[in-house]
């Protein structure tokens, strides 16, 4: 069913929708609450060793340690940073290392210590790091960075 470039709506309809959407309509008229609105745990690569992306601050391709789904990384060090926590991770199979910085909740950071095993899941947008099936953080690649943005426009 093709409809893409043809509008089903009149200008009046769109104008009404836009006005309703952007003009402070009563809050109770909104359809969905959001619990995950700022909860996406995004981490960034801060330093790499054995990486295909060494030297790149804005990582387009992830370091080699984050490129194999199912790989196990072991936490070798946990360091405090100005923005949060830096985990130094080492791939068990070949020793490839990557450091990721995360500015999420301290409680979750505290649950990850030296020796913790972290599993890598690779998707098109980056790598998901998990511990025992629960997401620890998401490390976006260049494509993933383009998908992420969070900004509160009105109070």
């Amino acid at each position: 069913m093709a409809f893409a470039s043809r509008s089903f709506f009149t200008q009046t309809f769109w104008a009404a929708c836009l006005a309703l959407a952007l003009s402070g309509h009563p809050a109770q008229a909104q359809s969905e609450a959001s619990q995950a609105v700022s909860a996406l745990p995004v981490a960034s690569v801060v330093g790499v060793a054995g990486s295909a992306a060494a030297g790149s601050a804005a990582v387009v391709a992830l370091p080699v340690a984050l490129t194999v789904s199912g790989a196990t990384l072991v936490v070798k060090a946990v360091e405090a940073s100005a923005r949060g926590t830096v985990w130094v991770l080492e791939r068990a199979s070949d020793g490839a290392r990557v450091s990721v910085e995360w500015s999420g909740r301290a409680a979750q950071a505290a649950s990850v210590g030296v020796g913790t095993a972290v599993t890598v899941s690779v998707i098109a947008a980056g790598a998901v790091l998990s511990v025992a099936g629960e997401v620890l953080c998401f490390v976006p690649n260049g494509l993933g960075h383009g998908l992420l943005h969070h900004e509160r426009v009105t109070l």
Partner: protein
Amino acid sequence: MTPTPFSRPVTLTALALATWLALGTPAAHAGRACETRPLTTQALSQGLTLAQRTAQALDEEHARSGARVVVLARAGQDLGKYQLRYSHLGWAYKTAEGPWRVLHKLNQCGTPVASLYRQGLGEFFMDDLWRPEAAWSVPAPALQGPLLALLSRP
């Protein structure tokens, strides 16, 4: 039936009803649960994969029709009993830098208080999907420019 991961078709009736639901029903703020559940790898992968596929499809739409503004729908909750497929709409637009952004209104969980948010497609589709599916509709060409200017406003 296995849900399709991405879907373009939206009938006027469905989208109009979804819009009505999104913007006009007084009881709708109570619609979603607010319990905190651990984020699973499967859920995160599903949301981000849908976001990535949607970005790709919207880029193709942009290349085909020139559209830079669309109304984007997601299925965040099961509204089947109302014969509705999508539960939430946002205005998505293509930025000058390339990525798509979505301007939409969200309630604070468990409250009648709402705010406007500008988010990436990743966040838009990470919000606890009921079905990993998206749909969009393109406003008329004459509205594209004014809508883009309004939506891009800081």
